[in-house]
């Protein structure tokens, strides 16, 4: 029964969204707009589910003293603290505790985590980017040319209007606008066709993985 209700709701919602493209009547558009508003409300509830899930998983880890349980205390405490400040204090002013924590804790921590990527790439560049085959050598060569063409120093080394093939920037532009563009277009079209086919399968109830069962 539960599965039948879910499939019916999926079909109705999917059909309405698709039909909206082809039926310009005002009353039908009104119905679709209403369903879309329901969608926004349902999405908002997923936040509640997310918080409940995090609290459940990490609460269990803390109560059982599982590995890294102390990190779970920090996570749950941070979540409760930020949520509490966001809900019970105004966050319109730059001096509010919520904005202060955002600007002085969350912002620099996030930036730091992302900045570490530079060091991972450094290690990979030296140890992992190996020309073990012709394909890998081509990839490496293209990567080097794009990296040099992408920055001003590349143009300073070999560039300018008189340079053969436009120098590093000219070669970079060609790589990006010819082979890269061709590959990206193929991927975009393939992904779009895949999305259409999956969407139709979900609407018709053929694809049921999202309900928790097998496809």
């Amino acid at each position, binding site marked *: 029964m539960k599965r039948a209700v879910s499939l019916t709701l999926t079909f109705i919602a999917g059909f309405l969204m698709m039909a909206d493209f082809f039926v310009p009547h005002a009353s039908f558009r009104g119905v679709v707009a209403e369903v879309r508003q329901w969608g926004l409300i349902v999405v908002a509830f997923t936040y509640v589910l997310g918080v409940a899930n995090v609290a459940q998983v990490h609460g269990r880890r803390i109560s059982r003293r599982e590995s890294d349980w102390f990190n779970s205390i920090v996570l749950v405490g941070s979540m409760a603290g930020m949520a509490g400040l966001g809900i019970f204090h105004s966050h319109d002013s*730059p001096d509010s505790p919520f904005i202060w924590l955002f600007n002085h804790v969350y912002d620099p921590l996030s930036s730091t985590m992302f900045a570490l990527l530079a060091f991972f790439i450094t290690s990979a560049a030296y140890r992992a980017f*190996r020309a073990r085959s012709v394909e890998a050598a081509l990839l490496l060569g293209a990567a080097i040319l794009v990296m*040099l063409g992408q920055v001003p*120093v590349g143009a300073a080394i070999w560039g300018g209007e008189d340079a053969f093939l436009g120098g590093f920037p000219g070669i970079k532009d060609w790589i990006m606008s010819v082979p890269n563009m061709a590959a990206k277009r193929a991927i975009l079209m393939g992904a779009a066709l895949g999305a259409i086919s999956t969407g139709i399968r979900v609407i018709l109830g053929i694809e049921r993985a999202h309900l928790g069962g097998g496809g």
Partner: protein
Amino acid sequence: MPGALLRKLEFVDRRWLFLMMACAIVIPLIFPVPLPIAVTDMVQDLYDSIEDLPEGSVVLVSVDYDPTGKPELEPFHVALFHQIARKKLRMVIVSLWSPAPPLTEQVIAEVGLETTYGMERGVDFVHLGFKEGRQIVMESMGRSLRQTFPVDRDRTPVSEIPLMQEVDKYDDFAMLINISAGSPGVKEYVQVVQSQYGIKMTGACTAVSGPDYVPYYDSGQMLGLAAGMKGAAEYEVLVGLPGSATAGMVAQSTTHLLLVAFIVFGNVMFFLARKRRS
């Protein structure tokens, strides 16, 4: 080359590599060397498309990045608000990424929209804040922006905001400008909004997303695109306000050179060691 030295160079302690990378980033930031920045067609077209808008036009700016994307996208964000203010355009700002509204407020203060340019909140610009729902929100804004965002970020009802009485649907905007660090962002706006409503669209994205979105510029679905810190630096040059992206290009140049050197040197060591082993 002796085998021991070869092995040492092939498996060099990665902390030395990290130290060299840190120096390659930090030293150019402390001692900047001016480098000429050539403006590409994509960024020139982005700048021109905004410059060509008539004074007083209303643009929709969707700010969709978080602190991890700040170094690449905030310079563009700052320069964009300068151009919008100088051109005396008006704007409605929305976000589909929850961390974006505080970052937008930082940029509004840094640019001095209210203090330097004298723009009035609610009259010349509106910050509607964040709404969860990704593509549903994009679709919903196409039907009614006022229904999708009943209040602005300061919880003022949109019915009391003068600028919001002039705009409600995508057709009411002269342009959509998206500052995007991922999904939902440029790709979703092109697929859900631009292709359906035909609104003029430009934007900025991270360097890693740039190659994915270039086909949209090539097809004319996007009038211009600034990808990564390089795109932001080019845009700063056009706006005439060299900022952190322009300064960052020197550091990016040295790091790219260092990475190329590491790749070449690492491969030379690899092949020498393989030859020796065989």
